[in-house]
């Protein structure tokens, strides 16, 4: 007999074959990280079933490697096991798609065997689906039922759970239907699998679905079928293919099952993981710690005639606090929002009116993600941006607070206070959020409540050192620690520390306590957790203040704000109206402009309507969008749109509108037009366009602007062109403000990636010569050769003339931008309007890349200029880094300009995965801070959580206002 044991990240699977490869037995269970014990139990059950038989055993699975090694049992790589089983039982299979707890794989069996596994940055797996289900407060199977009723699909990022969460949460908060969200989650997994794993190879032929998620969720299979335009096979035992393959591959001498059990039981784990100091040495230390923090309590009261209500409608939880005129808390509530903040606030208000019939609400304020919807639904008097609410609350506990850190359910907010003004704001980027919900997820996965789980870590002797990374990475770090024998206590303590490290080093990017401040107030639900608090104090070697209501600070601050602003009677919903309160939501797509925002229309029984998902005021007020004449992004877009195609004499040339073409179009358009070519530019970027080129993207971690190029090329391939022109430009123009003038490697050489990965180019000429636009004289003969090689005869002077015109046009294009910049700056000065330099790269003006953030900034009444409009107004200066990329040197110059001009501030757009911006962001920040300006960075990717961007912008504008006062 042969046994195959598949030890996955979350489950154990086991099969037994007889000599003729008949399946005698199979079993499946979750192991909750008690791998060895559960495996031994499983073998014992097999022993009972088949007493006295000799067996071959092999182990497989992502968590099986260590135990196999220690026990001296054969290990079979799991993908290889799958392949073996599929070869045997479903011959003729072309492609296997296998999703597991934390792994996703595609195995191509036709032709050369090729296997794709998810990289170190990839979600879209069972754990991801579980996480999303808990976000919707349903179990995973219910998710499947929900998805059956879906009417529409939202775009949800599935790169990792954290990303998706920040897409889904706002959808839920804005009232999107759970069924639609459920289907969107499955679609996201499909999208991630195909985009992230197939990487250029088409999935076609006989397709087999394996693994837990594809076994349990019919809707996921359906979603795959739809996307692949085929019907895949879900075989019997689809859960057990790895185990089956493992059993088939097991060889060597057969032994008795007792021997195998003994081997496993004696498998020693090497307790050699990296560890750090215990959080508390002993009980006494913990007692002292508790006593010290008990001092920061808020006053409470039993009754009040009048109260001020503060609500914090956060991303995963809702907090409400009622305070009396002295700031004492009458009542408070902390509840999970389960994707429906409106319902929970309604319940809270109902019980409040019931419990305190004689108390009058004098005034009310709301903050947080759900601010707008709650305000509209219940007639709350004031809205206040989260950062301000927290600051007001913190000041109440520590008047000279100079640093506040708030770790909430899924976001980390930190801000520095300088001279009584919020000075610098740090919010976690979507990718690095190791926050409250992160701990919760782990606790849940290991079978604990968050409170129990955190307590476990308090006295752990050797906390695991897990580093500071996002959830997906953390999963495998924990896996590794378990493999090395870390106890649950030590893992718990390690996770608490990692949350803290993540906040300090990744979000704040501080190098020590002094970087933070002297008087630090910590808040947010996650700091309720003593282990996290202690880890924080240990990490910065300084005691901090944790108010007793640390989880309620946003609401408390809102209540204080309501109190300070109260001038007239509150308009909050009355008990009568509340009893008949109703809330309906439906989704539409706004057709107001090219942003095509997915809107959710919320209607309330008070006849109030609230629209969410919008970038501008247009769908709400039905007016035209924010004044476009003050938005340089739209000015530049219009300029580029003017380069229309003319008649073709010599042929039709396609140009993909992406990356540096956003600046080079005037140049090449003029060049080719002068020579009598028709220039066809690829259409506007859309998500659909992106998807059309997705199958040719070889590296899933490259920036989104680069990924988009693939779609543009696909679009051009439909145009029946004579050639597609996309040259490699290692060097950019020398603007004489930097030490060198390169393009970044991706911009410079991306045509090579296109050339090597686009099958469609076999039938269309693709011109991607290396050209030196920075050496004008040397360029002519080279371009001449290129043109003659591809299109027949041209005279040198003809080419020279066309190039001269191209240079002229390019420079006049830049001049137009500069002129418009000057106009806007003068206008802002005269009208006393705030100016935002919204800077990045030329291609960031693509609405599919910047996601309409420019419109959003405009809606705050700011005048937007771009980096290329101001960079020539600043003299060259020395920076602390090697200033060697043309586009990036403009950022430093723009920062300098902002630093030196009142009323001018800067927001830097950074594409996720941009390696060069790891260098520029720190430098731009340093330049701004030297000029006492606030640095704001917005990370953008395929999908961007506009809710978070809004908070960031509001905080910035609130801080600027505060500063001005």
């Amino acid at each position, binding site marked *: 007999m042969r046994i195959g044991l598949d030890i996955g990240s979350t489950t154990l699977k086991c099969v037994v074959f007889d000599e003729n490869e008949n399946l005698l037995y199979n079993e499946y269970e979750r192991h909750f990280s008690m791998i060895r014990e559960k495996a031994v139990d499983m073998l014992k059950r097999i022993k009972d079933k088949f007493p006295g038989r000799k067996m071959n055993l092999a182990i497989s699975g992502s968590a099986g490697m260590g135990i196999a090694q220690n026990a001296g049992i054969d290990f079979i790589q799991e993908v290889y096991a799958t392949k073996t089983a599929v070869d045997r039982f479903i011959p003729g299979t072309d492609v296997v798609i296998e999703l597991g707890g934390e792994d996703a794989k595609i195995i191509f069996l036709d032709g050369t065997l090729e296997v794709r596994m998810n990289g170190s940055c990839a979600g879209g797996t069972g754990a991801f689906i579980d996480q999303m289900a808990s976000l919707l407060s349903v179990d995973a199977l219910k998710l499947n039922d929900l998805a059956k009723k879906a009417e529409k699909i939202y775009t949800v990022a599935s790169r990792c759970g954290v990303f998706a969460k920040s897409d889904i949460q706002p959808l839920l908060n804005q009232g999107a239907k759970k069924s639609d969200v459920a289907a969107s989650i499955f679609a996201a997994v499909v999208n991630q699998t195909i985009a992230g794993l197939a990487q250029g190879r088409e999935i076609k032929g006989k397709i087999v679905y394996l693994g837990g998620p594809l076994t349990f969720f019919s809707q996921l299979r359906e979603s795959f079928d739809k996307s692949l335009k085929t019907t895949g096979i879900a075989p019997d035992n689809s859960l057990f293919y790895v185990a089956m393959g493992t059993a088939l591959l097991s060889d060597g001498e057969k032994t008795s099952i007792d021997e195998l059990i003994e081997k496993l039981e004696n498998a020693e784990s090497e307790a050699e993981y990296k560890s750090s100091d215990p959080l508390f040495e002993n009980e006494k230390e913990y007692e002292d710690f508790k006593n010290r923090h008990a001092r920061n309590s808020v006053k409470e009261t039993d009754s009040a005639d009048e109260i001020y209500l503060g609500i914090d409608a956060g991303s995963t939880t809702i907090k409400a606090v009622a305070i009396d005129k002295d700031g004492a808390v009458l009542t408070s509530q902390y509840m999970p929002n389960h994707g429906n903040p409106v319902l929970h606030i309604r319940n809270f208000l109902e019980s409040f009116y019931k419990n305190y019939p004689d108390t009058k609400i004098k005034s009310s304020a709301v903050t947080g993600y759900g601010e707008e919807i709650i305000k509209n639904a219940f007639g709350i008097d004031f809205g206040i941006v989260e950062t301000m609410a927290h600051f007001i609350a913190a000041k109440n506990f520590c008047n000279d607070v100079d640093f506040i850190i708030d770790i909430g359910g899924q976001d980390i907010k930190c801000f520095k206070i300088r001279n009584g003004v919020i000075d610098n704001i740090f919010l976690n980027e979507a990718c690095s959020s190791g926050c409250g919900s992160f701990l919760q997820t782990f606790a849940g996965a290991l079978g604990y409540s968050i409170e129990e789980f955190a307590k476990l870590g308090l006295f752990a002797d050797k906390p695991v050192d897990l580093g500071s990374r996002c959830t997906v990475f953390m999963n495998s770090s924990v896996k590794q620690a378990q493999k090395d024998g870390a106890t649950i206590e030590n893992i718990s303590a390690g996770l608490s520390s990692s949350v803290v490290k993540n906040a300090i080093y990744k979000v704040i990017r501080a190098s020590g306590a002094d970087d933070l401040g002297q008087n630090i107030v910590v808040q947010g639900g996650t700091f309720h957790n003593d282990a996290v608090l202690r880890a924080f104090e240990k990490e910065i070697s300084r005691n901090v203040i944790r108010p007793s209501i640390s989880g309620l600070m946003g609401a408390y601050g809102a209540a204080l704000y309501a109190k300070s602003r109260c001038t007239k009677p509150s308009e909050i919903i009355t008990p009568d109206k509340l009893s008949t309160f109703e809330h309906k939501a439906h989704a539409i797509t706004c057709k107001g402009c090219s942003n095509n925002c997915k809107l959710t229309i919320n209607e309330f029984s008070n006849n109030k309507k609230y629209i969410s998902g919008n970038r501008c005021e247009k769908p709400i007020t039905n007016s035209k969008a924010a004044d476009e004449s003050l938005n340089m992004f739209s000015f530049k877009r219009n300029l580029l749109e003017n380069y229309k195609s003319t008649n073709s004499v010599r042929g039709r040339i396609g140009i993909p509108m992406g990356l540096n073409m956003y600046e080079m179009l005037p140049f090449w358009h003029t060049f080719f037009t002068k020579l009598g070519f028709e220039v066809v530019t690829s259409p506007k970027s859309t998500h659909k366009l992106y998807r059309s080129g997705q199958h040719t993207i070889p590296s899933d971690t490259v920036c989104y602007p680069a990924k988009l190029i693939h779609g543009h090329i696909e679009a051009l391939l439909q145009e029946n062109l004579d050639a597609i022109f996309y040259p*490699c430009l290692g060097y950019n123009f020398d603007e004489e403000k930097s030490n060198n003038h390169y393009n970044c490697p991706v911009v410079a050489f991306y045509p090579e990636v296109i050339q090597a990965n686009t099958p469609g180019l076999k039938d269309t000429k693709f011109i991607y010569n290396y050209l030196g636009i920075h050496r004008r004289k040397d360029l002519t003969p080279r371009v001449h050769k290129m043109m003659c090689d591809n299109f027949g005869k041209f005279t040198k002077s003809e080419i020279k003339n066309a190039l001269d015109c191209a240079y002229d046009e390019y420079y006049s294009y830049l001049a137009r931008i500069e002129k418009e910049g000057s106009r806007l700056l003068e206008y802002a000065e005269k009208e006393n309007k705030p100016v935002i330099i919204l800077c990045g790269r030329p291609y960031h003006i693509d609405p599919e890349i910047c996601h309409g953030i420019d419109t959003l900034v405009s809606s705050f009444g700011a005048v937007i200029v771009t980096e290329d409009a101001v960079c020539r107004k600043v003299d060259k200066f020395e920076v602390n880094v090697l200033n060697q990329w043309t586009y990036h040197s403009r950022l430093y110059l723009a920062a300098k300009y902002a630093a030196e001009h009142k009323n001018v501030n800067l927001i830097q757009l950074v594409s996720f995965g941009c390696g060069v911006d790891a260098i520029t962001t720190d430098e731009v920040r340093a330049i701004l801070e030297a000029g006492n300006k606030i640095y704001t960075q917005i990370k953008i990717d395929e999908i961007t959580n506009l809710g978070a961007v809004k908070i960031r912008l509001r905080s910035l504008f609130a801080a600027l206002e505060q500063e001005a006062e």
Partner: protein
Amino acid sequence: MEYKINRIEYTEEMDKEYTILIPNMLDVHFSFIQNLLEQDGHKVVLLKNEGRAVVDAGLKYVHNDTCYPALLVIGQFIDALQSGEFDVNKVAVMITQTGGGCRASNYLHLLRKALAKAGFPQVPVISLNVAGLEKNSGFKLSLPLIRKAMAAVVYGDMLMLLRNQVRPYEINAGDAEKLREHYTQKLCDDFTQSKGFTKKEMQENLKEMVRTFSEIPMEKTPKIKVGIVGEIYVKYSSLANNNLEDFLHEQGCEVDVPGLLGFLTFYIGNKLEEIKLYGGNKIKEFILEQVRVYLTGIEKIMIDVINEDGTFTAPMPFRKVHALAAQAISYGCDMGEGWLLTAEMMELIEHGYKNIVCAQPFGCLPNHIVGKGMIRKIRELYPDSNIVPIDYDPGATKVNQENRIKLMLAVAKENMQKENK
């Protein structure tokens, strides 16, 4: 608030009493370089500190999205400075600066920023570059020194190659390693006496190496042959790649890691290529051509010696590697490891190392193009190639990386069995 961090020049004065710290990338090569610098009159320490402390120092003082090599090298310096082992007022640090469009040219500046942040603003940072980027009166690269360094690279490459080709087959485990250590020591002694740098001496030394290595008792059982390519630091440094070579060895593979000489030739060749593509200075072109010819010359010595003996597989001449690349990528693609990385994969496949680990730092920009970006093309050209790209960064875990490599090995094993049938 003060914005600009002042650059401290490394002066002649300092050089009299300062110790220069250099990071480690390749044990043998860098021991040689250390030795050469000492003969040039400097006090030099080759840093060997590793472990979590290095990574943590890197994470603390370098932007976490910066490439892993920068994080490690800077982490290693800061960890060393904080260790108390050195007088931080009498120490300088040295780092290479290649001067291309890749982020790597910025390591020096990131290091300087990190030093300031960590409280060592007084420590001078010396740029080791041939591009004329930053100059220091206390440290100059002389032409003879460069020539010696090139010889050292050849020796290093040869020792790496011989060890890799003997180690999987040696009957007495450890023989190859012992011999490698012996030669490292011997050559350092030779260098101290200014011996070993002429072409003739090189030829003699290399011959002896090949002979003695071939005399190690070996048993030629069939092994899976795996090549390693990648971003230069991650490719070579065991600190960065979690002891990749040792892991592959434990899995019973023969490993080939293309040498450093090819990278130098590539680097020089690029300058020539750029002149061809974009235009440029004729004098510069002439000088560069001389260097290229010299490098080709010493490469030939090495290859001839190996081929004459016949026991081992010699590296492919650079000229041929260069020619191979043209099927996949253009020579203008020169940032980072550029087209060479693609070409090295092809070289390995042509030499029977069809299984390849392409090692890169997470988010490495050039590797999006020349590594991951070219794998599809290479598979088209060589359908039986078996390539796995592996990302390295402070968060990536060994278990994940090893699992992916094991998969590549399982496929390799199957292919090998098929071929033997």
